[in-house]
């Protein structure tokens, strides 16, 4: 079995040297120590230090959804930031208390809508622990494939939209082209591009179709090239570097204390990845690395996400090689429906089908919290079962919600234009924050 390592590279830079290599240089130095620039005499009238209150959002393209930020500005510097969320609140958790376990899966599509299949699978993992089901080896590998494809798709949207926020338009087109390829694959598998509803308690909605793996191999061949092109466009781009270095810095203890997870906490130098530290789906048997930043700024978050996409490609390549034959769904009549032709021709199977659909399977009394490493961070589902076919409580632990709660801390003292870059670096999805 391959061992897990954590790569520690010098991820952060603040400028470019003559050869075009990024490096971290203070603007003014005197014997190694940074010195404050003396402000030039101002020609503007002194406004008496009055603070200004401005609204960004809830309908603003740079807030990535219906997020409203109330900013108190001193000149152009942010003194205070008060975020307002909840514009998309639909009460998913309430609705879940009125649905059977398999009926909740379509709702999980609609929270973090950039990671639909990942949410479906995370939900199924939690429900399966409640029911005491061990999924088949083929299903385990298929789920890993779906989750890693979903991670790449989500990170691509992040890279594209963040690029637009900061002023780079081309990577957006390239990344969305590759994202289309992923959605073509998901469409071939589940019949839907975005809202896949692709997993079930005890298995998947469908096995992969014939020749699907060839399509995946084609993607795995072409995607790293696109990623390298985006890398060349951004990583050493002076504008990109200048707009992202040193912004929204969070130290490791601070990041943990604020509950950050995913690329946010790893960019801050905490090697915490649910796939490795609390593994599921046999992730510990894959050979992949957990990238960790050492500055905790927006640029590090960008580098961590780029590296994560490369590691996802590695995981996908290993998964293709090890995909075993066999059934996808478990052989467990409590949760799995009989084949359609039997349900329409045999009385017993019809009763079985009817009872499973109308009454729903009943897990034992108890509770469980299952977390997975979603593209945004630690995504948890907490189930409380009272022995009926519907959960007494279904709780989503949304990574974006907790990550966003640190934004007042991150934007404090930065310029107004940097708020956009910092907000983009959190990679929020409002559907998941508001639920």
């Amino acid at each position, binding site marked *: 079995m391959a061992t897990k390592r954590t790569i520690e590279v010098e991820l952060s830079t603040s400028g470019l040297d003559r050869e075009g290599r990024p490096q971290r240089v203070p603007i003014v130095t005197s014997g190694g120590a940074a010195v404050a620039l003396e402000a030039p005499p101002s020609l503007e009238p002194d406004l008496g230090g009055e603070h200004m209150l401005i609204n960004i959002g809830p309908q603003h393209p740079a807030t990535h959804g219906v997020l409203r930020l109330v900013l108190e500005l001193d000149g152009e510097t942010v003194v205070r930031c008060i975020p307002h*969320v909840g514009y998309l609140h639909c009460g998913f958790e309430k609705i879940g208390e009125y649905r059977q376990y398999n009926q909740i899966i379509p709702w999980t599509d609609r929270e973090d809508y950039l990671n639909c299949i990942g949410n479906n699978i995370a939900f199924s993992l939690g429900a399966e622990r409640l029911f005491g089901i061990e999924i088949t080896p083929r299903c385990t590998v298929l789920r890993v494939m779906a989750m890693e494809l979903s991670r790449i798709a989500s990170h691509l949207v992040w890279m594209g939209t963040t690029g637009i926020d900061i002023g780079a338009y081309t990577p957006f087109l390239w990344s969305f082209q590759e994202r289309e390829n992923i959605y073509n694959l998901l469409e071939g598998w589940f019949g839907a591009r975005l809202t896949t509803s692709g997993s079930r308690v005890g298995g998947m909605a469908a096995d992969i179709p014939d020749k699907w793996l060839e399509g995946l191999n084609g993607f795995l061949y072409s995607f790293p090239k696109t990623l390298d092109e985006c890398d060349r466009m951004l990583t050493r781009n002076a504008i990109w570097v200048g707009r992202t270095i040193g912004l929204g810095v969070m130290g490791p203890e601070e990041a943990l204390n604020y509950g950050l997870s995913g690329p946010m906490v790893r960019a801050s130098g905490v090697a915490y990845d649910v796939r490795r530290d609390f593994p599921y789906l046999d992730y510990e048997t894959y050979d992949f690395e957990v990238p960790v930043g050492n500055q905790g700024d927006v640029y590090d978050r960008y580098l961590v996400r780029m590296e994560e996409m490369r590691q996802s490609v590695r995981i996908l390549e290993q998964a293709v090689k090890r995909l075993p034959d066999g059934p996808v769904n478990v052989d467990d009549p409590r949760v799995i429906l009989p084949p359609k032709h039997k349900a329409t021709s045999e009385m017993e199977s019809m009763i079985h089908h009817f009872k499973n659909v109308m009454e729903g399977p009943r897990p034992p009394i108890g509770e469980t919290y299952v977390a997975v490493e979603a593209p945004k961070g630690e995504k948890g589902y907490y189930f409380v079962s009272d022995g009926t076919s519907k959960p007494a409580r279904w709780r989503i632990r949304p990574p974006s919600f907790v990550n966003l709660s640190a934004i007042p801390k991150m934007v404090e003292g930065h310029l107004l234009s940097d708020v956009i870059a910092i907000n983009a670096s959190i990679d929020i999805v409002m559907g998941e924050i508001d639920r």
Partner: protein
Amino acid sequence: MTTGFTIYHPEGDQPSTPKRVPHRGGAANPSATTVAARFPGAVLRSIVGWGETTLFVAADQLHDVVQWLHDEPSECYDYLSDVTAVEYRDLSQPMEVVWHLRSVKYRRFLRLKVQLAKDAPLAVPSVWDIYKGADWLERETFDMFGITFTGHPDLRRILLWESFTEGHPLRKDFPLRGRFSRSQQLTNALAAAPESRYSMEELSIADAFEDLPLDMRARLAGGDRTGE
């Protein structure tokens, strides 16, 4: 030039995916015994289900227990995953507030619970001073269940708007479709116009609240922030 910080690594062996986790029984988290030994009488009950340890803690000692779990180097619960609450369909059962703690360093997971009787005020201590990440999670629990977290610096609704008066949606006595008809809900929502209002703490006059004329204070306290 490196101004980076030390990389924070988990310790111990690489764990593997749990298989065939029993519904009841199994190995308990070692912290269950140490907490019980350190705080005699604080742990009312301890159960292990599906490999997860749940400690039922007395409400008045919860803050001390969490503080100790966070500070004690041999425990090092440095990460607060989640704060939420549970109300059962059997309304005679007490409400439960749930904290999911993780030790990233030692790769441990612990669930703390406080049971709240329905006839007493629903209040638990806030852990915001220990974990800053508890800020929004506690606000959400307050919003959805009406549980007060004493010591939270800014406990107001988060997902619903401040002037929402229908109650707390995740309580079992709250109807699935809300308390009003769809058209009435739309009318209410439009009348609420949350973008036209600033909350008290966003207003520059918040500091001078005590100096304002009485009628203005009453208007502001009643939720009128439009300044009209």
